[in-house]
């Protein structure tokens, strides 16, 4: 939304979005990050074309082979192609990140708006809820909740349970942020004007106030995706995330908890580990530049 709208009319206009995009472009690291994330997304979407070998097929004649021309990242214990697994694993990891963040942004935005707009008892309840959720160390509450949610779902739906749990437990920071801005904006003259023209409460919140909070929402969502990818990887690393044989970056690294694999088959865990770090660093570069670009203080 931000980028295409401005990219086509860069030289002419001078809207806030265009000025933000200009500031964003100044960060070389963010542009590199954007390219890397784009490549990761393309690899994930085009996985069946990029990775010709079956990520689930065991090849017992080619077990534990170091990288060769045929298997460029080598093969694992049961002879599966590590390159294919890394590419398909990216599909899962990125999807979990995207869905979880969409959920957490939706909840955080709506509750933040309502909390800030109505104030009083509603505000109090929502804010105490954020206090409670934020008191739990993230990976611990997620690890405690995932087995319970997974138990309620059929086993092939576990992955959706993981997305839901991450999304349901990471919204409080955004809700607080949006609430703070709403508290100020609900008394802004243009909102009062809309109110006096008879705009409903919902219209004031979602049509008049929400657009003003989009910048911080976008920054939160960017960092949130990186965070969700890390949470899924951590969860899978501890054996509670995406279940083998389906590959995810986290559960591929998990195999290295066996010292034998860690020491003797480094190629099986190095590639997915590197993909996690490169993706998350790139997203953080983008998030950092976005924050600088939309932060009024830096203008």
């Amino acid at each position: 939304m931000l980028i295409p709208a401005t990219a086509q009319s860069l030289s002419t206009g001078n809207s806030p979005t265009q000025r933000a995009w200009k500031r964003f472009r100044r960060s070389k690291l963010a542009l590199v990050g954007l390219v890397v994330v784009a490549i990761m997304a393309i690899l994930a979407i085009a996985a069946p074309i990029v990775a010709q070998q079956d990520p689930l097929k065991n090849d017992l004649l080619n077990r534990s082979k170091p990288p060769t021309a045929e298997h460029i990242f080598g093969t694992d214990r049961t002879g599966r192609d590590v390159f294919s697994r890394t590419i398909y694993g990216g599909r899962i990891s990125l999807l979990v990140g995207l869905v979880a963040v969409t959920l957490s942004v939706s909840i955080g935005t709506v509750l933040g708006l309502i909390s800030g707009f109505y104030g009083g008892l509603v505000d109090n309840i929502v804010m105490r809820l954020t206090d409670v959720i934020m008191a739990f160390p993230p990976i611990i509450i997620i690890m405690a909740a995932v087995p319970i949610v997974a138990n309620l779902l059929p086993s092939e739906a576990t992955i959706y349970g993981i997305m839901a749990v991450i999304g349901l437990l990471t919204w409080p920071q955004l809700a607080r942020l949006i609430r703070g801005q709403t508290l100020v904006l609900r008394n802004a003259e243009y909102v009062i004007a809309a109110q006096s023209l008879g705009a409903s409460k919902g219209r004031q919140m979602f049509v008049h106030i929400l657009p003003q909070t989009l910048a911080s929402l976008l920054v939160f969502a960017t960092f949130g995706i990186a965070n969700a990818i890390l949470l899924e990887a951590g969860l899978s690393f501890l054996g509670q995330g995406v279940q083998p044989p389906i590959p995810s970056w986290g559960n591929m690294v998990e195999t290295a908890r066996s010292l034998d694999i860690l020491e003797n088959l480094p190629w099986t865990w190095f590639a997915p580990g590197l993909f996690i770090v490169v993706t998350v660093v790139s997203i953080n570069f983008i998030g950092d530049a976005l924050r600088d670009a939309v932060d009024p203080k830096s203008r």
Partner: protein
Amino acid sequence: MVQYIVRRVLINIPVLIGITMAVFLLISLAPGDPLSAYISPELGSDPATLAALRTKFGFDQPLPVRYLNWLGQALQGNLGYRLKTFDPVWPVILERIPATLMLMATALSIGIVVGVPLGIFSALRKYSVIDMILTGGVFLGVSTPAFLIGLGSLFVFSLGLRLFPAGGMHTLGQEESVIDTLHHLALPALILSANYIASMLRYTRASMLDVISEQYVTTARAKGLSERAVILKHALSNALIPIVTVIGFSIPNLLAGAVFTETIFAWPGMGSVFVDGVNSRDFPLMMGVTLVTATAVLIFNLLTDIVYALINPKIRYA
């Protein structure tokens, strides 16, 4: 000040009640017989006895009543019994707390001792090559999950160079000694501190940059103080105030990080017993750790608030 502390404590009570409600909700949703949540297995296992126990302990009562029953037991230190070994949960956790605290305190100290000076240095040499390198390091440190740093270091230092032991807290078969424990502690603590050094550096740098452009710093310079005195006495003491809150709000992440480092290095703390509990679907144990860590976070937050008020009079009298 007393009034301030009392107010902070009171504000945290509803949150604590909320935490217990959330944990109880998870317990009620967890599969398995809720009786195991706090009935000693020694009381019997045949259906008739269990049914009698269920009535006796009020499991046929509505949810709010069951919550109050459970809360009453939890307040007396009865967090239920482990499903496999039938050990009571609270002593198991209590026994693990010192190891986790030792790991966290060491990591916290390393984070402060390394991160703060580097952050000051980075701020004073803004946009220099070293600042850029440090900023790059911060990104890498924040973006690399603890388990990857852990595995990488285990690979290089323990398996490759054989400098550190690959796990545990003591060398088996050897008498326990401080040196031996420190040798086992070094690698996991360093790894746990990695993310922390990065965030300490980032916040110190930002806070220092904020302070340096203040007018009183310019005044100090104008009256001819040495640059050293300006930075160390005038700028630093104010720059460090927000850093205290950073220490506070990184406790949840430090606890989360401990789950990974303890698991990788078989460090006998709360984190590793929690992961054991999750892997064996030992719900009473999982919920016990969840409750204890959340309560710990709340207590640390309270302490941070108090320390913050002590060093920052603006808050105390607000």
